[in-house]
């Protein structure tokens, strides 16, 4: 049986081992599906990319004038947390080498019809078949990183923000679950008042 959680944890950790966290303020887990994503003839699959957001990039690109709708301090600015403004120097955790493992895991767990999305699923923001299942594993990976790895590696608490282009219910809830020690406090304050 494939242990997808351990597999993804190791893949993510392998990437993070190479990161310099000295200037970092958050980590983005971009989990998103689109009809145009395709693997082995299957469409609407989910991608999982990770990136590090650092203060230098933020301070260089932060523009106070953009925060005109909801005035805020820069730590609660949409530019600090909204994916549209992030550097998003992403590493693809799921790629041509790792997708076969994911699909094998889907198969072992009886999850078929990957990518199928009807109107009801769309309206409830559940994503296509395979999305929520993968997201749940990614939540576990994130929790394990917070418990065992990140604070030791960084020397400080750092939030993992799970994102797509929007802030769907399931994605926001995932971020709440991942940050077990309230690491994402400022993000949620921003989400509440500014985003």
């Amino acid at each position, binding site marked *: 049986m494939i242990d997808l959680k351990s597999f993804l944890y190791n893949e993510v950790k392998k990437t993070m081992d190479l990161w310099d966290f000295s200037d970092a303020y958050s980590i983005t887990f971009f989990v998103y599906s689109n009809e*145009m994503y395709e693997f082995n003839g299957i469409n609407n699959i989910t991608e999982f990319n990770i990136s590090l957001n650092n203060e230098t990039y933020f301070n260089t690109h932060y523009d106070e*004038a953009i925060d*005109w*709708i909801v005035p805020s301090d820069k730590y609660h600015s*949409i530019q600090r947390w909204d994916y549209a*403004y992030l550097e998003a120097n*992403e590493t693809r955790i799921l790629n041509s080498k790792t997708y076969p493992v994911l699909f094998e895991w889907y198969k072992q767990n009886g999850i078929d019809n990957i990518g199928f999305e009807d109107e009801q699923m*769309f309206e409830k*923001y559940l994503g296509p078949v395979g999305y929520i299942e993968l997201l749940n594993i990614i939540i576990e990976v994130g929790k394990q990183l917070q418990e065992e790895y990140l604070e030791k590696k960084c020397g400080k608490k750092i939030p993992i923000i799970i994102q797509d282009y929007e802030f769907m219910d399931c994605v926001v809830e995932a971020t709440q679950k991942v940050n077990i020690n309230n690491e994402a406090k400022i993000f949620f304050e921003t989400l*509440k008042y500014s985003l």
Partner: protein
Amino acid sequence: MAEIINDKMEHIEYDDFGNSTDIKEGFGYDSEKHDVTGNIYLRARYYNPRIGQFIQIDTYRGTQEDITSQNRYTYCLNNQYKYTDPSGHFGLLALLAGYKATEYLLIGGALVIGAYLLTPSGKKATKKGIEALYSLGKKVYDTVKNNNKKKNTAANKVATITTNIVSAGTASIPKPNIGIAIPIPQPCPEPKHRDWNEVPNNIMKILSVLGLMSWFNVLLQKVNSEPNKYGDSMENHHIVPQGALKYKGFEQQFDFFLDDAREVIKTHFGSVHNSVNMVLIPKQLHKHCHDRNSYYYSIKCNFPITEKASNRKNAVATKLGEYRFLLMWIGTFVK
């Protein structure tokens, strides 16, 4: 708005942007004059309350400090709750402009304070409260009054202000000698980016109609300067977003904005997830199409709940088509 006519209380209802079916002609929203077409005359140009934007471009280019002021079609910096725009050039804080009948602010003070409020420093000053603004206004007024004891007629005052505003793009704004360092908004230079010269007229027209000038300007700079990290990767983009800021646990500031737009699309096309509402664009561009400010705001303005009317289907489809055409064209700029 309510008034007593022939001993009867009459009222006119407006939506947030001054649109109303109750008024055909005459003075109404913000005490300004509506013409027969429904547009409102704001001296320098006409404002269309139906789309919440001016229908002519502003001669004033805005300020470098405030990117919103650089969109030369928006009304009141897209914040009509806070600002009013009696000059047709830029927004003044509504509370202050309410005193326009008095000499208190009209003699140049309003111009200086209005311009000041558009700057980041002005925003901070706003936070300090209305009292501070009155205090500043009084100082400006006293200074101007001392310097210019000549009593202007109302027409002269308006003409003076208009002249100052129009010349603000090239000349410095009169600076009162009141001992307070008021940052003078710096007029925007001519766009340097060569790509503006390459934008065809039909795209310019769409940008104008949809109120996306400032978003487009920022986007052009981004897609030209940042490396394309995604190669040829293309994604489906929902023009009216599927569920932007829909999180049920929070009182989202923008949720109700986009809920209206989503309802309009659902009314006419059954679902937001309809090909009419979708466009295929590069991933590099898609990211920037989820900008919480200008792009989402244009969606809110262009698909108001009034578009739910049964006879509006073609108009909604046309607007979606314009967005689609525009986004596909911008996609060609991604390297």
